[in-house]
């Protein structure tokens, strides 16, 4: 896996969400991703960044353009130092939420991207990594 472009953004306030989404759009436009795939990736990113703000008071996101066996894609890594998720399988269930939301954020984001990885250590934080390839597969 080769990293071609890399950027890091701190997300600490709700106002950081729109500029962050625009940055994701720039990255996906740069590799020629279609509008539908861009919209999926940005929506997933929006869900994840919102979770980070809501449950961990923010964190940072690493944006990368990666290339692997002639496939190009955007990789986003959301890292926070919040309370962590005690039960990962419950958190990935549709409709489950501890925060009075619709509970679509994590499972929905997973459905929207090609690769999704969630790691969490209670008390230490959560890291979510997603990859969306240029052609959406």
């Amino acid at each position, binding site marked *: 896996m080769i990293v071609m472009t890399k950027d890091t953004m701190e997300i600490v306030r*709700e106002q950081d*969400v*729109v500029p962050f989404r625009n940055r994701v759009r720039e990255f996906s436009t740069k590799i020629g991703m279609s509008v*539908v795939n861009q919209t999926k990736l*940005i*929506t997933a990113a929006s869900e994840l960044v919102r979770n980070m703000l809501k449950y961990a008071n923010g964190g940072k996101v690493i944006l990368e353009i990666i290339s692997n066996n002639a496939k190009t894609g955007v990789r986003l890594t959301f890292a926070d130092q919040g309370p962590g998720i005690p039960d990962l399988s419950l958190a990935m269930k549709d409709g489950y939420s501890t925060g009075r939301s619709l509970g*679509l954020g994590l499972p929905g984001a997973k459905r929207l991207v090609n690769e999704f990885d969630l790691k969490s250590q209670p008390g230490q934080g959560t890291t979510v990594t997603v990859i969306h390839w240029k052609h959406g597969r």
Partner: protein
Amino acid sequence: MDRIPILKMGHFLLVTIQVDLYDRLALTLENDLISMVSQTGARGVLIDISAVSIVDSFMGRILGNIASMSRIMDAETVVVGMQPAVAITLVELGLTLQGVYTALNVEKGMELLNSKMDTNLEQEEDEEDQDDRND
């Protein structure tokens, strides 16, 4: 503070969302719309999202809230102009906007609201007729 303008046209309220909504702006819109429905006695709310490129679960919930609250206040809500990519994404996300009427564009949305008003009026007249007969 930023605000999304709400226009009153006849019995309806029109909102065109031209910017990417951040949370506070969306919540302000929700509040403003419900107050306007109450003040003006509007019978319908039309929300044009043709310029909105991202609808996530938060934004979807706001649209659902506006529709439910308006309905309690006797007004119907129609969301118009959704971009195809947004529709595809919403369904995969698992958000089907239940209870929210949708139309392809502003024109069709207005037709839908008008037809809803007509059927409501007919029902009211029917009820009145029945009342008359009962008298």
